[in-house]
């Protein structure tokens, strides 16, 4: 089983290399789409298998984790537990749906093999990122995924896209510098790079609240907060995400900011630094502010993709708030069950957001494909002209708004309940208020794009090609099914993921202390 972990990175990567090689051979260049599909399908299969194994171990009550090191387990560079396997499932599933969509969408661009190859490299890097058990490996893969995304944002080579990519790259370089300074300081302080070993050294408590640890943790968290576009550092996201081709917007908003930002923050805070009260406050403050500011900024936009990009900040705020509440419950002695509920809420919302935000970005891409514009005030009446896109867009909008049968409602409900139980009723009220704001955003999207009078552009719109429809319908089904299947999903995916963070060695050690 451990041997599966490097293959999860190497297989999509090999397919990505193969795509470029085949594209240069006459007669074989038509195979590139198939090869890239195989790359992601293989990744998805392995992710499902990993989830199954992790669940079996979890159900048996044992240590539900695998680690893979080339030499000795103490130096393991790869580590998989419930959280990693959940993220792997999200990455590969959403990636596959987006790839199917992009087969048709990318026909308007040149050199599509470069797109497919970069997409696969990005997915492989994200797989490696969530599997990293070593801080420096984490850094390398964050950097690889980011580098691929810089190039993909500029894929259209138009002036705006190049500009957005440049601004994004500058922020990315600042972020990765902070991350690497943090990793270097952490190594110098503890003499280790492996996360478990660092946590063990830190748990001895010699370094507690020393300025050096403050600097190291501060650099790491600041760098990752830039990657996650949390509010003081959110400026790049609203340029980069809308400028990319729609499949890449979907991938970045739906998956990249979660793996490179939120996942890495959760992993480092819970598994390496130890979830104490001060980190909990930092996370909750960051999450709460992002939630409100993101929603307010989103409401004022008239560009569909820009509106969706700002709402990503807000929704990631929810996840961060729930993670912070989990850390708070853990450190304030409210009990592990409540902490677990907070984390389950966070991961459920992360899962749902990956589905509905990718869906909405794909739908907006489809609208742009058909009408040539993304301005809400130039659209209208698309529900009749483009039935499949309209239907999927409506489902995505209802999910993000938190209307009951869809998945967004349930995850927000879990988060609100968990916040109340954790003794943070004020934040629960804030979460409900932001949910109302999000509802307004969804209403605005539907009112101007789908309903009402058809504008000039919208009257000539035709339904997009079928691969785009397939990609959207798959994600829409997840949005419908995710809400109804909360309890099985919780049992099979979210509980192992939450336990993985709570079971981290440091939390145990901290629990043992008075």
């Amino acid at each position, binding site marked *: 089983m451990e041997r599966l972990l490097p293959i999860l990175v190497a297989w999509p990567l090999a397919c990505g290399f193969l795509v470029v090689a085949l594209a240069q051979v006459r007669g074989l260049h038509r195979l590139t789409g198939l090869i890239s599909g195989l790359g992601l399908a293989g990744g998805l299969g392995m992710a499902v298998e990993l989830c199954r194994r992790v669940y079996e171990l979890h159900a048996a009550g044992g240590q539900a984790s695998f680690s893979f090191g080339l030499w000795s387990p103490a130096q393991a560079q790869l580590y998989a537990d419930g959280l990693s396997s959940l993220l792997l499932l999200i990455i590969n599933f959403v990636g596959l749906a987006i790839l199917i969509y992009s087969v048709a969408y990318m026909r308007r661009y040149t050199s599509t093999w470069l797109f497919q190859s970069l997409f696969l490299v990005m997915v492989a890097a994200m797989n490696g990122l969530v599997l990293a058990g070593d801080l420096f490996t984490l850094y*390398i893969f964050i950097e690889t995924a980011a580098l691929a995304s810089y190039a993909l944002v500029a894929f259209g080579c138009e002036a705006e896209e190049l500009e957005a990519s440049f601004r994004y790259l500058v922020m990315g370089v600042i972020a990765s*510098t902070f991350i690497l*300074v943090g990793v270097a300081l952490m190594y110098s302080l503890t003499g280790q790079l492996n996360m478990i070993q660092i946590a063990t050294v830190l748990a001895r408590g010699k370094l507690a609240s020393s300025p050096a640890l403050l600097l190291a943790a501060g650099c790491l968290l600041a760098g990752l907060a830039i990657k996650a576009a949390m509010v003081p550092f959110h400026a790049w996201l609203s*340029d980069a995400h809308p400028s990319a081709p729609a499949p890449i917007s979907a991938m970045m908003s739906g998956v990249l900011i979660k793996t490179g930002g939120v996942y890495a923050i959760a992993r480092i805070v819970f598994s390496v630094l130890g979830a104490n009260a001060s980190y909990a406050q930092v996370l909750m403050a960051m999450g709460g502010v992002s939630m409100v500011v993101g929603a307010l900024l989103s409401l004022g936009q008239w560009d569909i993709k820009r509106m969706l990009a700002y709402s990503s900040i807000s929704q990631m705020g929810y996840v961060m708030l729930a993670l912070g509440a989990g850390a708070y419950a853990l450190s304030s002695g409210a009990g592990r069950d409540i902490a677990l509920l907070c984390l389950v809420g966070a991961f459920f919302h992360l899962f749902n957001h990956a589905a509905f935000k990718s869906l909405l970005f794909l739908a907006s891409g489809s609208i742009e494909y058909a009408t040539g514009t993304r301005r809400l005030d130039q659209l209208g009446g698309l529900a009749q002209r483009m039935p499949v896109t309209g239907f999927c867009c409506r489902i995505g909008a209802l999910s993000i708004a938190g209307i009951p049968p869809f998945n967004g409602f349930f995850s927000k409900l879990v988060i609100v309940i968990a916040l109340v139980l954790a003794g943070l009723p004020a934040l629960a009220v804030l979460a409900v208020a932001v949910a109302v704001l999000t509802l307004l955003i969804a209403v605005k999207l539907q009112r101007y794009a789908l309903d009402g009078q058809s504008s000039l552009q919208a009257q000539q719109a035709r339904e997009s090609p079928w691969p785009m429809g397939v990609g959207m319908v798959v994600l829409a089904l997840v949005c419908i099914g995710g809400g109804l299947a909360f309890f099985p999903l919780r049992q099979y995916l979210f509980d192992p993921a939450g336990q993985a963070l709570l079971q981290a060695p440091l939390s145990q050690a901290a629990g043992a202390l008075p």
Partner: protein
Amino acid sequence: MGIAIYMMAFGLLLVGLYALVAKKNVVRIIIGIAILDYGINLLLVLMGYRHGGSAPILGKGETTAQLAARSVDPLPQVMVLTNIVVELAMVVVVVALAIRIYDRYGTFDMNDIRRLRG
């Protein structure tokens, strides 16, 4: 003296950060990226230094224990080596971006390069 050296390395990082955040010229921003990379490489390689240490390469007839007793820390060097690859990768992408931006906008001035937020 050790602290002074480390502070210089941090100062280098801050100069790079300043160039990235406050400067308005594409070339100067690229220079800032290069400075940041130098700062990081410097910080890492300094963290691995040991008083009177020498390169971690096994001499003729030397045992591993003797090597471990005399050499500098090899792990930060490995990190720097990897980071140099990252640096070159960044430079390739950012120079390509800058050239294309110049093609499209006809300038290196970020004040004129702002069609976004329109």
